Structures are given as C-alpha cells and as structure tokens.
C-alpha cells in the first residue's frame, strides 16, 4: 500500500524529516508516536501534500505510484485521507454540501456517477450512526461552533463516507474527553478492513488502548528510532520519551 523510503523534508530550510523509512501493508494499523517536535505532523502533512514543505530526498510509493507527484486533491481522489488535528471551520458552507462535494469528487475519479440527493442522504445517514452524530450536524456550517469532540467525529464521518485506502489520523485523540474518545475509536475500529491501511499519529498511549495497532513506531528528531508491536507503546507510557531523545542519531531498532 505505502512505502516511504529515506524521506527527507524541510520547512523554511530547516530539516524536519531526516530519512523516514516505513512500509505499511493493506489492512495494517500503524501507530506513530513521539515527543513534540519529532516531525509527526510534518509527516502527515507531507503525505497529504500540504504546501510549504520541501522534499529534499527520498520517495513515497503509494499503490505503485509516486505519491509526491500528485496534488493534494489528486491524492485524496486516489484514496489518501487525512483526519486533521485541527479541522477547519468554513462559515456558510453546510456540512452536507462539503460531504457531498467530497464524495462526488472521489466518485468522479473512480469513474462513477455522482450520487443524487436522495441516495446521498441515505448513505450519509447510515454513516452517521457509526459516529453517533445527529442529523442536525449536516445542516450546520462545516465545523463552525462544533466542540472539539464534534469536530473529530465529523472527521471520522468523512472518513467513513469517503472509504479511503490509506487513512492518516493526526492526533485524533487530542482534545477529546473519554466518552468522545470511545465514540471516535469505535468509529475507526468499524472502519478497519483488509483493504484499508491506517496510520495513527499520537503523542499519548491512551488512544492505543481503544484502537489497538499492529505496529508501533517511535519518531524522534525526524527519524523512526524504534519499532515494535503494541507492547512498545506500553513501555513508552512507563518510561516517557526522555530515553528516546538520548538515543544517538541515526540509530533505528
């Protein structure tokens, strides 16, 4: 599904990612953990194609194509989905309008007809149950006046609707109380499948109690310094990240 090879990326001339190597197969859930400033959000932004990052070395192969060649919308249409850490408010644009435009953009790329209003509403209602969202959310402006939990549930709703091949969840647990965390996690778990890969980016181990990953990687100073299974996350929980930063540069387990 996804193969990241020796990826280096800079912002304003400062190197943030310094040789990331990561392979994610279909159906796998990978957690990427690390202290603040390790490059976690940079990695998700680079994969989604956000402007302002310069790729200085390396490549990212997604479904056999060089992902970095594509515009953000082309990546999205090909099934790359980013659940934002800070979902953006778009005043005056109803949630249902954005959802429909997004779904139809993806369907158009897939050579499918646009869904009409009735079919779309039926579909979106079934997906809303997954994240326990009320129908009134459809008619409110995108993320405007949403609580932190509502915003994150809205992200998962979009993911459920768009059915991506590769979903990147950027700090999806941040700002959630325990009830919201449960709802969001149940939504994500329901979306796990053999055809879908998920990369979870998080600072805390807490999320991994609810969405149990197949692999855990520790990112530090722009490199993956340790990889393991879910036990690695528990170990981190006990020891914190301080030992990570003490590792000599360029070492990976």
């Amino acid at each position, binding site marked *: 599904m996804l193969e990241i090879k020796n990826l280096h990326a800079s912002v304003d001339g400062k190197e943030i990612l310094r040789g990331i190597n990561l392979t994610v197969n279909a159906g796998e859930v990978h957690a990427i953990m690390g202290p603040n400033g390790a490059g976690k959000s940079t990695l998700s932004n680079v994969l989604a194609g956000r402007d302002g990052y310069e790729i200085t070395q390396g490549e990212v192969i997604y479904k056999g194509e060089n992902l970095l060649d594509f515009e*953000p919308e082309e990546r*999205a249409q090909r099934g790359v989905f980013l659940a934002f850490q800070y979902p953006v408010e778009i005043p005056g644009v109803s949630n249902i309008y954005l959802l429909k435009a997004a779904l139809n953009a993806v369907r158009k790329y897939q050579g499918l007809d646009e869904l009409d209003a009735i079919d779309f509403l039926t579909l979106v209602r079934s997906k809303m149950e997954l994240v326990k969202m009320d129908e009134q959310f459809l008619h409110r402006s995108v993320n405007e006046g949403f609580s932190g939990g509502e915003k994150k549930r809205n992200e998962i709703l979009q993911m459920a609707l768009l059915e991506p091949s590769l979903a990147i969840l950027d700090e999806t647990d941040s700002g959630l109380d325990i009830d919201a965390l449960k709802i969001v996690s149940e939504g994500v778990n329901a979306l796990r499948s053999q055809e879908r890969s998920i990369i979870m980016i998080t600072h805390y181990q807490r999320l991994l109690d609810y969405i149990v990953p197949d692999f855990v990687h520790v990112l530090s100073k722009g490199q993956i310094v340790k990889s393991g299974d879910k036990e690695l996350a528990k170990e981190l929980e006990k020891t914190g990240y301080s030992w990570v930063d003490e590792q000599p540069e360029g070492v990976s387990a």
Partner: protein
Amino acid sequence: MAEQKQQIEEFVPKEYSAGFITDIEADSLPAGLSEDIVRQISQIKGEPEFLLEWRLQAYRHWLTMATPEWAHVHYPEINYQDISYYSAPKKKTDGPKSLDEVDPELLRTYEKLGVPLDERARLAGVAVDAVFDSVSVANTFQDKLAEQGILFMPFSKAVHEHPELIKQYLGSVVPYKDNYYAALNSAVFSDGSFVYIPKGVRCPMELSTYFRINAANTGQFERTLIIADDDSYVSYLEGCTAPMRDENQLHAAVVELVAMDRAQIKYSTVQNWYPGDENGKGGIYNFVTKRAACRGESSKVSWTQVETGSAITWKYPSVVLQGDNSVGEFYSVAVTNNMQQADTGTKMIHLGKNTSSTVISKGISAGRSQNAYRGLVRVGPNADNARNYTECDSLLMGDKSAAHTFPYIEVKNPTAKVEHEASTSKISEDQLFYCKQRGLDLEDAVSMIVNGFCKQVIRELPMEFAVEAQNLLGLSLEGSVG
C-alpha cells in the same frame, strides 16, 4: 505555503463570456454633449414638452456641478464631449410590436447571453424587457400582465401612453439636482423600464430587464421607474453585460422606486458589465443612482445586488423610510478582481416611526483591486423607535487587494437602535488545503468558500438568479487563485 501563495497571486486572464460584439447597424448621435443634443434625443423620442423642459433644466444644472471626488476610486477625467449619448439598432419606425419584428441578430445576442426573448421558451414566469444600447428592443408578456392592470414597458413608451404617471413620479425620488451623474442621466437618458403595479395586485411573475451596451464610445443612460401602489407586490430583476472593448464606457443609470401603503418591492441586480482586462484596460464605469421611497405605511423595499463586473462601480441603492413601520433592506455582494474598483453600499434614511432597516454587505477583493463599503444610516428627529442592523464583511484574496469600510451613522432621535458589525478575513490556506484534502480542486474549493461567505445575500435572490449569481461568483474569481 510559498507555492499556495504564489497560486493566489498569479493572475490568469479570466474569460469574460459576455464580451462579444454584435454586428448590427446602428443610428447614433455624434459624440458630444450640448443643449442641442438634449433636444435631439427628446425629438427622436417624440417626447412631450414637459419632458424636454425637464431634461433641459437638468442639463443646465449639470453644467454648474463638479465631478464628485469623495469616492474611494481613481480614474482619469472623463471627457463628456467624447461620448455619444444615443445609439439605437437601425429598425423600423416605432420599435418592435412583436418579436417577429425584432432583428434576428439581436435575438441571437440575447440568446447567447442566456436571455431568450421567445415567450414560448423556457423562461415562463419571467417577463423580460431587453435594452440594447439606448433603446428597448423587446418586451415580453406585456399582454398577460395588462390583464391585471400591470404596466411593464420601455420607459419611452410609457412617456407616450402614461404621461401623467411619468410627470407625477419622474424625479420624485431622485431629483435631477441630486448628484452629478443623476443630473447627467436626467438630461440625456434614452430608455429603460417602467413598471406600475395597481392597488392590491401581486405581480404573478418576475419582471426582468436585461441591459446590454454594444456600440463603441457610447454611454448608456437608462432610467427605471417602478411604482407599487397600495397593497401590491413586485419582484424585479436586472442583469447587465457589455462587450470587451479597450476604451472605458460610461454607464450612468437612475433607478427610482416608489412603494405606497403596505406595498412591497424586491429589486435584484446581477451586474456583470465588462470589468476591463487584468491590467485595467477598458471596462465600464458604472456610476449609478438607485433609490427607493417607502412612502406608504408598512411598505417594504429590498435591494439585493451581486456586483461582479465594471472597471469602477459607484453605487448606493438606498431607501428613504417615510411611511411609519416601513422596512428597508440591502443585501449586497461586491466582487472585485484584477484592477477593478468598487465603492458601493447603501443609505437608509429613517423618517417615519417604527421604521427598520437591515444592511448585509459582503465584499470580496482579489487581484490588485480596491473594494469599499460606504454606508449611511440616518435617523431623523421624528423617527421614533427606528432600528438598523448593519453587517459588513470583507474577504481578501491574495495580499495585493484592499478592503475598506466607511460607515456613517447620524442619529437625531434618542429611541433609535443602531447596530454595526464589521469583519475582515482572508481566505485561508488552511481552508483551501482542507477542501483539497477532501478531493476538491482549487477552483471548486474557492468557489465553495466564497459562496459560503455570500450565503446570506445569495439566498435573498430569486431562484433562477441565485444559480446565475453563484456561477458568476466562481467565474469572476477564476484565475485569482492560479
């Protein structure tokens, strides 16, 4: 970020789809302005003496006036002697009686613009008056409207058929002394639309006028007069386009609305005059005076405008709230791109008791354009319990455009409640990236965000117009984001 910014700053010349020229023979007066020209216009139209006198008074007054310079717009001085004040497609005498008599070339022009004049065509439900340069060339559904006593006809025809109404109302809302361009218009206006809705009649269809400037070096000076008698209702739409020409063309219209007791007038404009090219060459100078008088008690006037065209727009559709309990509304979207300049807003003049007004203004500036909102809310000493709510929001695209807000508030009655809210925001890269990450391309994302920003105004437009306006918004900003 750097790349995105560059995209926003890049300017691709946008396609102005209404920019074609119709090859048609025209009768034009030579360029220049004098008493003689004013007399000739009046003579061509076979006008009654009172109207000629009125024109001449206006002309003489205009000579004493100076060009207004307070607006936040800049342009070289206009030489009024270089303009032709009258141009009409060559035609049989007296104007067309039916569509069969309209030059097929003209019908094709309106067809191209998406305004089919064929009454049997799909526009069922909208009666159209088409004004080409200085004259009305087609006017549909007149018979059907006449059954209910509704008058909807070219202004020049109304002068002949209903001189008493013209005499009574012309200049009663916008006197010729009102301002420089109103005086000029009063002297040389050539045609326009006239509407009268009798007492108790709810006009069964949208009335629409479509203005088209075609001839080169010609000014367009139309005059619209709408009178809604007691307990009547009318919704009126106005659209405008012009060919792409390198010279600037002057458009100085006057619109007067009169609402009697409990009457309601809804006036919607989609203005898409040629804005000039990306370097500011050519385009229409749109210097327009629009004003409504809510004369009767509990009368109501709503102005809704979507302004995307013109090199320079100078326009303040206003409402004078004379009748007690009368209501004035102004909903506006003004888009400027490239080198366009707009100074637009409204005046709400509260004179009667318990009068209320709402102003919602959305300005969008892209390119190197200048977009100003200028609004006056005045509450007179007798206007007890007057209320006004004003909201003006500006959206900036790129970092070379500018938005300005000039609110004027004059309150002479202590019971008044006046609220003013203003905001300025930039279309953010975060919003664009969010939409793109969901699969939308840049143009669609911008169009969606802009339409969301304008939603409060767009939803006031009649359905057919709302769709046109939304497309126009997308089109006007095309290229402003790469």
